[in-house]
């Protein structure tokens, strides 16, 4: 058994290193156009193609699943070393898969270097800025959808220059990810769940490592605030806990999904006051810095809810029933389904169901019913799933992730060249 664990650990490290080293060479459809930030790694690997990437991703996923099954036999120290190694390998490499980080930098540079409001202008407004060529083509005209707290967190990185800002974003994601992992460990221990297993379930997750951290996504900052809230709630500090959820929602609005469950579970005035205090403070700061657009979360959510991605489950189901894609009526049906699910979970929470599990189910339902599903959205529920009292949530979260990975496999089965 020890040999199998070592083998799985080696597969995880090797698959991650393969993707990072091959990706460092650039000129890959999986690596966004980027300034050379991992030059010392280029030349070691070959150009990262879909075939190698998907084989590495499958190997990673297989080893991860086996390791989860053997988690009780893995020492805590080894779990920490392995997870730490995976995070550092990805941190040292190039930006993987997504151009989002360049949008983050563009919005920050708009505010700091060009005195433009990122809530009213898209990156097209800074067409001569060095970051502009790297912004994804779909996002050049789109104003930021992120919360004012995230915008303020990203502003100090803007003056660092393009490469400095990329490293700053990578460091932010690494620290937020490690913070999330540390708090997941702590919360698991508070609930008598194997902390090493919880750490592996999140920190060695293929979508966490390759897509979340690899793309330096701000979702990791959101999950950090979520886990801070859970930790504070476990300590009985209800007001700071709900305030932390609000802070997470001011990074990315999705985090607000935890709030009603947390308040229903505690049923204390302090929870409501904490949330209200954070909301008022956040709204005041957001309004002062960005104007009314900076706090108009509803408009940003409505805009993003209309997007459609090929990987979303509603799109796949539409294809299954012979439709070319989702229609406006489908958006309404999906919203209706989500409302029903949330209402049921709220009722269950009121009657004593684990609020962390209810929050996790809600985040999972949001990602499954969203017509705009990106791989890192499937990470939202993961830290909650590993500490929830309802183990079905973890199984469901991992199943959704596996389906996402399966959906990527067509180029491996019939490669086009």
């Amino acid at each position, binding site marked *: 058994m020890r040999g199998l664990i070592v083998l799985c650990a080696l597969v995880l490290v090797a698959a991650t290193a393969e993707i990072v080293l091959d990706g460092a060479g650039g000129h890959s459809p999986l690596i966004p156009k980027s300034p050379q930030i991992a030059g010392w790694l280029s030349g070691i690997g070959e150009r990262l193609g*879909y075939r190698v990437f998907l084989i590495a991703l499958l190997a990673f996923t297989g080893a991860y699943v086996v390791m989860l099954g053997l988690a009780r036999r893995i020492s805590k120290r080894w779990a920490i070393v392995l997870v730490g190694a995976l995070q550092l390998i990805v941190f040292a490499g190039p930006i993987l898969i997504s151009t989002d980080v360049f949008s983050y930098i563009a919005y920050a540079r708009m505010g700091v270097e060009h005195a433009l409001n990122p809530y009213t202008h898209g990156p097209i407004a800074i067409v001569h800025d060095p970051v502009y060529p790297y912004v994804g083509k779909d996002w050049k005209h789109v104003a930021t959808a992120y919360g004012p707290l995230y915008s303020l967190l990203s502003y100090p990185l803007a003056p660092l220059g393009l490469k400095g800002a990329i490293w700053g974003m990578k460091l932010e994601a690494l620290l937020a990810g490690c913070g999330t992992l540390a708090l997941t460990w702590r919360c698991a221990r508070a609930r008598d769940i194997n902390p090493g297993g919880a750490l592996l379930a999140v920190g060695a997750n293929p979508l966490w490592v390759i897509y979340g951290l690899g793309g330096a996504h701000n979702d990791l900052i959101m999950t950090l605030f979520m886990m801070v809230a859970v930790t504070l709630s476990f300590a009985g500090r209800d007001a700071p806990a709900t305030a932390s959820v609000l802070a997470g929602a001011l990074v990315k609005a999705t985090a607000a999904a935890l709030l009603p469950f947390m308040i229903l579970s505690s049923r204390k005035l302090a929870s409501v006051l904490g949330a209200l205090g954070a909301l008022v403070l956040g709204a005041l700061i957001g309004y002062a810095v960005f104007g009314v657009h900076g706090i108009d979360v509803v408009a940003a959510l409505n805009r993003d809810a209309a997007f459609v991605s090929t990987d979303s489950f509603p799109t*796949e189901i539409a*294809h*299954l029933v012979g439709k070319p894609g989702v229609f406006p009526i489908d958006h309404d049906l999906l919203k209706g389904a989500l409302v029903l699910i949330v209402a049921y979970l709220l009722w269950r929470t009121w009657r004593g169901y684990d609020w962390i599990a209810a929050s996790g189910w809600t985040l999972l339902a949001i990602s499954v019913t969203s017509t705009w599903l990106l791989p890192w959205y499937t990470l939202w529920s993961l830290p909650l799933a590993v500490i929830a009292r309802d183990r079905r949530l973890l199984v469901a979260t991992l199943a959704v992730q596996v389906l996402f990975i399966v959906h990527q*496999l*067509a180029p491996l089965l019939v*490669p086009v060249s």
Partner: protein
Amino acid sequence: MSDAETPVQRDKWDRLPAWLRPRDVELPGTGRRRLVEVTLLLLAGLLLAIATVNDVVKQTHVNHRLIADLRTWRSYTGHDYRNLSTEQDFYGHTTRDVVCGNTTPGAPKERVQLCLRMTGPVIRGRRTAGGGWYLPPKVEDVPASRYGCFGTAKSAQLCGPAARGSESPEGTSPETGQ
């Protein structure tokens, strides 16, 4: 089910009927609700799994067709170029694809491009190139930029400013679709 089992703040919620009162911990129950929930979750999971596999199978068929399209373009032009762009008719749901590539060696879209309109089934690894057009260097494939239409593209009037709508809806090469 006795409410005495639930250590909740009775003073605050006493006025509510028992079934509406909040609880700190759920009652164990008979397992029927859990059974219903698990059944619904399994059905939802099954639907998602079938939809995912169906999509993958469809995508492999599309890739199979694209391979034939690329092979046809190379065979038609005699150029073994790798950087060809493909556009599929996503909106019309036909199997009509357009493959464009340089007519002379150079970076993608840096030379005059020849676009071929592929139709029909894959036969011995190839499809029928029923017509096509040329494009000047460094321009996207829009009707106004096309010239020298031939074959079915000419009869369908797909070239020039007066062309009938675009035959090249928003498409993507499989290597940029991530």
